[in-house]
């Protein structure tokens, strides 16, 4: 279960990162960055 959960998180994190680099508007990049922080913390720290 934990591996599936981590894989889902990894998938969403990668999508957000790609979105951050593809988006041209600053406000949308900042929004993606803020959500990305939560996903990275969740991916790496929450056991």
């Amino acid at each position, binding site marked *: 279960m934990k591996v599936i959960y981590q894989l889902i998180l990894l998938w969403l994190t*990668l*999508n957000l*990162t*790609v979105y*951050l*680099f*593809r*988006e*041209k508007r*600053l406000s949308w*990049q*900042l929004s*993606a*960055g803020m959500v*990305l*922080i939560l996903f*990275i*913390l969740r991916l*790496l*720290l*929450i*056991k």
Partner: protein
Amino acid sequence: MKTRLNFKNLNFQRGQPIFIFIMVVIICFFTGENFLSLHQEDLIIPSSGLSQQLRLSHYLPTLANTPGNTRVFLFEGKEKGGNVLILGGTHPNEPAGFIAATILIENLIIKKGRLFIIPQANLSGFTHNDAFEANPQRFSLPAQDGLRWFRYGSRLTNPIHQWPDPTTYINPSSQKLAGPESRNLNRAYPGSKEGSLTERVAWAIMQLLKTENIHLAIDLHEASPEYPVINAIVFHERAAELAAMTMMDLQMEGFDLRLEASPPNLHGLSHREWGDLTSTLAILLETANASHGRLKGKPSPQLIVKGQDANYVRAARLGRLFVPFDEEGIPLKRRVARHLASIKSLITNLAALYPSQTIKFEYFPSPQLLLKNGFKDFLQIASSSK
């Protein structure tokens, strides 16, 4: 619907997204470091009188490698005598219990009997704060080698470790409670061997009481000054005589104290289940903590340590509190001294009532000295760790 990552049109040339990504990594590093620090155990430097340091998994092996596997410190005299358990940190937002237990561990030397001390009974609760309370994560006290930090946690087990809460919690003694109370250690007794993390911790403590033949068990707590059960000894009916003798002792020492009988129909609490299901004399001690209350002003480490709050001074003038409260406040040292004086008196009176259950101390930290000089003399130097 696209399910593959689309790497087209990525913009690595402009500095803007790269800068934002670097900021994301920096923020993750610092917040991650802070998050991990919440899971470090507080520093406790046992005295030379410590006989053994165990973990709660000694009494329930499935607790090993879980956030509930808290430390158990055993002080054993050369002569056989009474067995006593002292529990601090059942509620990690009630620091007087945890600090009183820590001061005992760092100073006690025993000649006769055995004393078990669990300073952080709900270890998981020390790894987070209550949401929306704006409580500080830590507070500091003067030790012999400078300031020492202690965690200020939550009343309940961390939801990261036990989730989700049920809508209604029916505890192991069939008492119906609100869902979040499933993470309250002092509603989970007698616990369950295969239950939630909180119930397993409760079950392991019950096992300790039974297997070590504990004669007297003391659960250290705090409550808000507007709560009626305050500056009190809550006692199981078999411990009534012991509690009454202790109340008289403490009043002679200048600590005003009231007696509260454990309600027979309120199940899941330590003073009820310990007394009903084991042969121990069950006692719960309460002091008044302004940082715990609903009327408090801005939460801060100073409020925890000094216990001064203008809102509570006003509430006292309006007659809304159950304890006297003036500009001096109720500092942590006074709350801890009250716990220490109560513990000493309870153990002395246990010996008076049942001589075979005597515990003799070579050194017991003096509540009066703590009141006079503060914590510095009682928190040891880190390099003196055994």
